[in-house]
């Protein structure tokens, strides 16, 4: 096993522990902590959307016309329907652009 692959294993174990910490942490907190400061709570609340947006926006801007078009259509679908439908429709859009139009 090379060093990079070993690092991946460590990384996955750390990710598993981090996940378990969230699933166990609330139980521990509820028996210890009285309250979380409002600004900290606001920051924590914003974490997932902030992180995930950084994975979406650059793909939209730098991913090329086909990817941007698929993401726009998927966005419209996602306001009403499930993630699975977003994926399906977005995939159809990108395949049509790549194989039928371009």
């Amino acid at each position: 096993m090379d060093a990079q692959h070993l690092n991946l294993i460590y990384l996955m174990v750390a990710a598993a522990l981090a996940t378990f910490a969230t699933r166990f942490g609330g139980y521990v907190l509820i028996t210890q902590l009285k309250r979380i400061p409002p600004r900290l709570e606001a920051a924590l609340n914003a974490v997932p959307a902030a992180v995930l947006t950084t994975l979406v926006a650059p793909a939209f801007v730098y991913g090329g016309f086909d990817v941007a078009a698929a993401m726009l259509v998927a966005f419209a679908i996602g306001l009403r329907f499930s993630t699975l439908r977003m994926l399906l429709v977005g995939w159809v859009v990108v395949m049509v652009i790549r194989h039928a139009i371009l």
Partner: protein
Amino acid sequence: MNRDDFRAGLRGGFPVMLSASPFGALFGALAVDNGFSVADAVFMSATVYAGASQMVGIELFGNNVQPWLVVLSVFAVNFRHVLYSASIAKHIRHYTLVQKLLAFFLLVDPQYAESERRAERGLPVTFSWYLGFGLVIYFPWILNTLIGALFGQLIGDPKAIGLDVLLPIYFLGLVLGFRKRDRFLPVVATSAVASVAAMHFVGSPWHVSIGALAGILLAAVLPPEHRLRQEHAPVEKEA
């Protein structure tokens, strides 16, 4: 163990398992596409067992993002589980320590939601029921990852079959899932602009930390939109 409760759990978890299956397979295929071996993909599904954060993990790892940031991101995406484990505590107080540890390991979104619903209807959240519900989702999740990973290895060019567009759309869906939260629009707009600018001026993978930090700082500084505390904690959808 109560066999009837265990079977009721299996029945309850079955539709959840079905709807999560495509995401398990998708994770397997994308993990291989991002440089994971089949065994790595299966290992991650078996140990992390949290769809959205697994996707985030493979995406960041594929971009050679610093390890601490990958782990932090996984933690961030799963942070809502802190609320789950806090609010489920009263229903599982009677579990033994080992049963509790197992229960927390299996505490994905639908597991939490169904446990709360069961308690609300006045039914006891027995360990037998909980385990049945959890295992009928957990083992197929791993199996579907394996299937997706094996299938993904057969694919030559992921772009030719449109695989590359699925991850950004998946993340877009996750972002939309948080749209009811306080300060959603300003946070997303700030992180979007900051990450695009960082990608341009600094380069990947720094766009992730810079963009995320910008949105988080803004949320901490902005006054709250409305005062709906604690009880809002919605059950967000996750694969």
